[in-house]
């Protein structure tokens, strides 16, 4: 699995960016110590003009680079947590539906249908407005719109696994249905869900950015979306304030896709045409 992965230059590039990003996110307080929202210099210093403040400062004189580094922390944390919650919830519901069958399956799948016809972003908006903006609320709000995909994939896989011999054997051994469903079958339904995990993570990063752009993110953390929204007021005079965090977002998402695509290809044994 590792060899074909390492042989692809675009996957390597994506992996390198992603790794750097995760390191920056993890060690943000060490790389850019202190409060990223503290005033560091004159307001609106353009980027690449002051060696001490390489990316310049914003309207209030805050260090843009420090904000960017701490924003990476929020993006990575929220993106990964939301994807994790969505995959876990989706797998659980999908496995339960596929294994139980009958009325339980019909009811659960109707709920999946209902979640799928509501635009996830509107649901996230409604959820944040009810529960109040905090990091965990944002994570849950994003997961609300993302769990149906994994649920459908898991159910489809469980339906085909349900009749296998090892399930019959587990029944004969006297395992409880819940134990068979969640300990024996669910792990086997994971691969098709993992194949789309990178898309879920990327979508979660983008949704978090859009929510904080609209002012519905956690007000106590630095987020790229909020930075872009802040910069909007100086779009005519200092467009870099919005452009720089956007570039960081694009790099994050694109490297996630590149790594995900390479992983999916090597997991499924499908080589690039």
């Amino acid at each position, binding site marked *: 699995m590792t060899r074909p992965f390492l042989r692809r230059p675009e996957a390597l590039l994506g992996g390198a960016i992603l790794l750097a990003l995760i390191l920056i996110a993890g060690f943000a307080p060490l790389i850019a110590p202190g409060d990223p929202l503290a005033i560091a210099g004159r307001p609106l210093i353009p980027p690449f003009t002051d060696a001490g403040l390489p990316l310049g400062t914003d309207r209030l004189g805050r260090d843009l680079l420090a904000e960017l580094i701490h924003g990476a922390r929020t993006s990575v944390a929220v993106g990964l947590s939301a994807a994790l919650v969505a995959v876990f919830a989706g797998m659980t519901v999908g496995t339960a539906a596929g294994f139980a069958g009958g009325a339980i399956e019909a009811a659960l799948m109707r709920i999946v249908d209902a979640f799928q016809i*509501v635009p996830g972003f509107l649901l996230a908006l409604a959820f944040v407005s009810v529960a109040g903006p905090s990091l965990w609320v944002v994570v849950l709000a994003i997961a609300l719109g993302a769990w149906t995909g994994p649920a459908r994939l898991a159910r489809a896989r469980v339906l085909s696994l349900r009749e296998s011999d090892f399930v019959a054997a587990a029944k004969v051994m006297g395992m409880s249905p819940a134990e068979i469903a969640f300990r024996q079958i669910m792990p086997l339904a994971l691969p098709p869900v993992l194949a789309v995990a990178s898309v879920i993570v990327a979508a979660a990063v983008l949704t978090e950015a859009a929510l904080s752009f609209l002012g519905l993110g956690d007000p106590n953390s630095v987020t790229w979306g909020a930075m872009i929204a802040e910069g909007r007021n100086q779009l005519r005079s200092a467009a870099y304030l919005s452009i720089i965090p956007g570039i960081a977002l694009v790099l994050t998402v694109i490297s996630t896709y590149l790594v995900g695509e390479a992983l999916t290809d090597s997991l499924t044994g499908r080589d690039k045409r």
Partner: protein
Amino acid sequence: MARLGRVVLARLAGSVPVLLIVLVGVFLLLDSAGGDAVDAYLLSMGGGDAQMAAELRTRYGLDGSALSRLLFTLGQYARGDLGWSIALNRPIGPVIAERLPNTLWLMGSATALSFLLGSALGVLAGRRPGSLLDRVLSGGSLFLYSIPSFWLGLVLAVVFAVQLRWLPVSGIETIASGKAGLARAADIARHLVLPVAALGMIYLALFLRIMRSGMAEAWGQDFTLAARARGLPDWRITLNHAARNALLPLVTMLGLQSAAMLGGSVVIESVFAIPGFGRLAQEAVAGRDAPLLLAVILTSALMVVIANLLVDLAYGWLDPRVGSGAGHD
């Protein structure tokens, strides 16, 4: 035609239970919020006494238990009444009817742009998988696919509206321009160029990628080989055989993406200050107007149902192996 009508009616009736789940679920979510629209309204009025608050709550069905409020709302919807927006102090139905066209224009144009351009470029890329053109288009589409639409909107606005001054920065039309007929249509079209590009680009990239991989797959299959053996010209095999097959997953995707696109238009409408449906959702959130937000979410769910229905009808027309959608799930 009568048969088609029956299929459509049957499908719409079949989606009623799911819409009901949405209605009840969203109602319960919004109902659990602390503070309602009456609080927000009184706050905006600079306060009010308890008796006035109680009277307002009775009038808008906001008093009593959660169950009685739910039944009140269900009864309203059953009569085709979407309720009263406290934040806007107007009935919700007309507000939605007023805002919906702007969003439909935005989404319709973005869908048309991304579908036509995305599939055409996908055919070009998939014509010779692995060629230089394919690699350029595939790489470019992955890049486009990674750009957040609201940020792209801002960048486009900086370049084309602020720097070059080719296009208007915001709004859906020039305010109080007195334009009518074609001149007004041209004005609205000019205002729509940037938001449509910002919203549509990500889907253009998606459709390009799907079309390309469908084309690449078709080349390995028997029917293209057979067409080649019959000596058909290259362009006919590309268009009539490979592309027509590769179009099917694209059409499916169109339905699946309609909900996501509706969500995306919320942010785009905010970037370009378009008085559409997405802005209405934001105004509802800002005004703590639960009945309005509920109506917006339910209407969007209905729109997604209709979009999927249209996609199914198109699918039956494109792929003769599928019936007209009757009796299939």
